[in-house]
């Protein structure tokens, strides 16, 4: 690595190539068209090319890569869910995350911090104990810890939360981590590009052609493409895409806002979440506090920010960490979350042959990026649902077979 840096220092020009090529023209046809160049779409393209030998793939993106929820989340990676299918799935993801920097030869700043979900009531404690037991059963490191443990690890936290929501315990999940989110999209994009996948930015999908129940092509703002397989990975735009193929879904769209503070010296190693206070907080490698809360309370297809959010979240953060009262907020933003009624994704095959769905990622999509890409690549390449995602099919809303993941939503929604 130092030699590479030396080359940068000595070269009059930037010696490193572009992360991916730009293609002037779309081809007439591709084996697979992926709609959405976020982490999920690019990860699917990467694993299709790397593991399944399918490289005649194009990834279409209306904006720019990683510009949607991939670059708008609060980068938390964990697997302490409550349902067996959830724990297995997210644990597979955490294992992929741990090797991803090496896999890409790109530093994702993957940083294992430990993750505390605070319990302020007896019923919170009960849920934490339940989650800990399910996690341990599947070999995931989670433990219910008491106030003494928390106070020892986090001496700067006000354990009484201003006197009105005392911390009774927490679910401690040691593998909890954060990573540099846009680097994930770039890593997958570069890896896919090197293996022959075409990435087309600023290319909007305006229609999907379906003939006798089978996908036959995609209409884009730059012309028509023939293809028999389409993977839809567009988060907040999913309902619009589903309309094009005449499918119904339970997905509803609410914005999710977040913000960061000015940088401070490193003082907060773990990630702290409190469902009762509607707060999650971690400190990035740059020293900024990355802060999030719950969903906006009504449907909106816009990434506007609100002052109500900043005020409400700041007030709750101060209950946990009163000494932050002079720290300034420097940025806030929003992402458009595609929510499902059971807080689990909708993945796999659909009633339209050749139309594959990777959606319903609501507020839990970033941590699933590697495993979603891997399982969707398998599903698209072999036209058979990967065993890790059978419980997440769109069909569960016809057969009344919802998952029970709602209990583990880290922040009250």
């Amino acid at each position: 690595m130092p030699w590479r840096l030396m080359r940068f220092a000595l070269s009059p020009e930037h010696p490193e190539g572009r992360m991916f090529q730009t293609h002037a023209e779309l081809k007439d046809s591709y084996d697979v068209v992926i709609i959405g160049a976020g982490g999920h779409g690019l990860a699917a393209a990467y694993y299709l090319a790397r593991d399944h030998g399918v490289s005649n793939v194009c990834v279409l993106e209306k904006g720019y890569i990683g510009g949607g929820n991939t670059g708008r989340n609060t980068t938390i990676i964990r697997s302490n869910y409550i349902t067996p299918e959830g724990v297995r799935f997210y644990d597979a993801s955490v294992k992929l995350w741990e090797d991803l920097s090496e896999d890409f030869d790109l530093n994702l700043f993957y940083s294992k911090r430990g993750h505390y979900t605070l319990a302020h009531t007896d019923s919170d404690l009960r849920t934490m104990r339940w989650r800990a037991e399910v996690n341990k059963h599947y070999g995931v490191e989670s433990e219910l810890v008491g106030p003494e443990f928390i106070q020892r690890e986090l001496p700067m936290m006000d354990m009484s939360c201003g006197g009105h929501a005392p911390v009774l315990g927490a679910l401690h999940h040691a593998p909890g981590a954060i990573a540099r989110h846009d680097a994930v999209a770039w890593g997958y994009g570069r890896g896919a590009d090197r293996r022959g996948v075409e990435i087309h930015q600023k290319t909007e999908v305006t229609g999907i052609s379906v003939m006798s129940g089978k996908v036959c092509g995609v209409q884009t703002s730059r012309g028509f493409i023939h293809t028999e397989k389409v993977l839809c990975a567009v988060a907040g735009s999913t309902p619009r895409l589903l309309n094009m193929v005449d499918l119904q879904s339970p997905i509803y769209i609410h914005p999710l806002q977040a913000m960061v503070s000015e940088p401070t010296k490193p003082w907060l190693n773990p990630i702290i979440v409190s469902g009762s206070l509607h707060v999650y907080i971690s400190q990035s490698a740059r020293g900024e506090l990355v802060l999030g809360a719950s969903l906006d309370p009504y449907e909106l297809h816009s990434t506007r920010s609100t002052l109500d959010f900043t005020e409400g979240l700041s007030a709750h953060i101060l209950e946990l960490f009163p000494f932050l009262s002079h720290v300034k907020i420097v940025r806030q933003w929003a992402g458009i979350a595609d929510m499902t009624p059971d807080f689990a994704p909708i993945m796999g095959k659909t009633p339209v042959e050749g139309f594959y769905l990777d959606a319903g990622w609501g507020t839990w999509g970033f941590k699933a990026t590697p495993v979603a890409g891997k399982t969707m690549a398998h599903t698209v390449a072999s036209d058979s649902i990967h065993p890790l995602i059978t419980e997440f099919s769109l069909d569960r809303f016809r057969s009344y077979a919802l998952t029970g993941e709602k209990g583990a939503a880290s922040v009250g929604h």
Partner: protein
Amino acid sequence: MKMIACPIQGLRPVSEFVYWGEVRDTPDPDTCTDQEWADYVFNRNGVAGIKKEWWCHIPSNTWFIAERNTVTDQTVRTFLYGEDGRC
């Protein structure tokens, strides 16, 4: 703060309101099929547009319907149930 016009109370801050989803017809549970019922229970129209929605002004418990643009967040009009002839 963003304001919403309650048909009874007039312009009030959005924090006094609760959103209750799009106005939808309930199929007759005695005669509809399981699939129609599942469609009603779970599926939603998630596409952006001007939608008719149930809202409630909490302090006065006034339930009403708002026509709102879900892209710009502008309320086109608000009215009480039954006041527009259709719903």
